[in-house]
């Protein structure tokens, strides 16, 4: 069953819009907490966290508006939300990369990878600006999703290598959340290739579960009582 034919089904529309709206709300709540490391430390290297989740929330909001019928679905809006989403993952990956002091970062390979990803993204943006009316092509969709997937994979590896993972139960759940987010992007890539119904819905469910896990971890940590109270 193709998602394109199912997209006319009103149940599909309601469910899709509901998932997008719930994602928007979760991202907005996460931004409120993700900005705290920057507020407390005043270090610019942590600004990527709230920026990433803000961009992610905006891209889900655009999807919700488009699918709900408030705005006509068109190529420019589709490309805009796609690129916003990719930039959000790049922001998150960069925040993780710089979370270690620059002096400790001697892994030039990742610097090269991030530079490459930024070039691909910038090229995609330029292509969208120069040729906004060309028909939707799988190449742009595919390349941007690959960029997002690489960013999430980097974040996952980064978290996995942290020493705290063994002692901190919340760190394990954060790892699970990023793994689910990665699976969500992977499912979307599968969907682009074969329009599989399961891959499409799987990606939405993985994404939603990932955001819920991140939200639960955040609430658990920030809801801890004061020492001695």
């Amino acid at each position, binding site marked *: 069953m193709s998602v394109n034919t199912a997209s006319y089904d009103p149940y599909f529309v309601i469910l899709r819009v509901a998932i997008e709206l719930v994602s928007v709300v979760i991202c907005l709540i996460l931004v409120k907490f993700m900005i705290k490391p920057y507020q407390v430390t005043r270090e610019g290297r942590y600004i990527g966290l709230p920026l990433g989740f803000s961009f992610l929330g905006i891209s889900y909001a655009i999807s919700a508006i488009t699918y709900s019928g408030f705005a006509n679905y068109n190529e420019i809006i589709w490309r805009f939300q796609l690129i916003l989403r990719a930039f959000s993952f790049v922001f998150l990956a960069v925040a993780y990369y710089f979370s270690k002091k620059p002096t400790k970062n001697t892994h030039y390979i990742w610097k090269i990878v991030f530079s490459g990803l930024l070039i691909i993204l910038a090229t995609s943006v330029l292509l969208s600006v120069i040729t906004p009316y060309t028909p939707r092509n799988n190449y742009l969709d595919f390349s941007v999703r690959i960029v997002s997937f690489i960013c999430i994979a980097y974040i996952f590896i980064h978290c996995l290598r*942290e020493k705290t993972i063994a002692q901190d139960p919340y760190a394990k759940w954060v790892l699970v959340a990023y793994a689910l987010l990665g699976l969500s992007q992977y499912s979307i890539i599968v969907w682009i290739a074969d329009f599989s119904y399961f891959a499409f819905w799987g990606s939405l469910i993985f994404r939603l579960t990932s955001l819920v896990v991140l939200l639960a971890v955040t609430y658990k940590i920030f809801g*801890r009582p004061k020492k001695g109270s």
Partner: protein
Amino acid sequence: MKIPRRDKMKIYGDLLLVLQAESSKEKVTITKIISKSNIPFTRLKKYIADLVELGLIEDETSLKLTEKGKRYLHQYETVLAFMESMGMSYK
């Protein structure tokens, strides 16, 4: 092993943690604070003056945390725990 340089916010946070731990004891000695916070005496005096000015500790002699100081310290510890769980280091 080379110890990474700390920025001002990290120093304030670490210093407040030491002061909080020491405040439970009868007498707070400056030598203990110097050794535990790893800050030389001349700089420590300046940081303590800054903390008093910010209203985070009562005065330069008692070195007791104010309510504002306790609130800030709780927020600092929570954010540090959050960053660790998120797989981010604050060094």
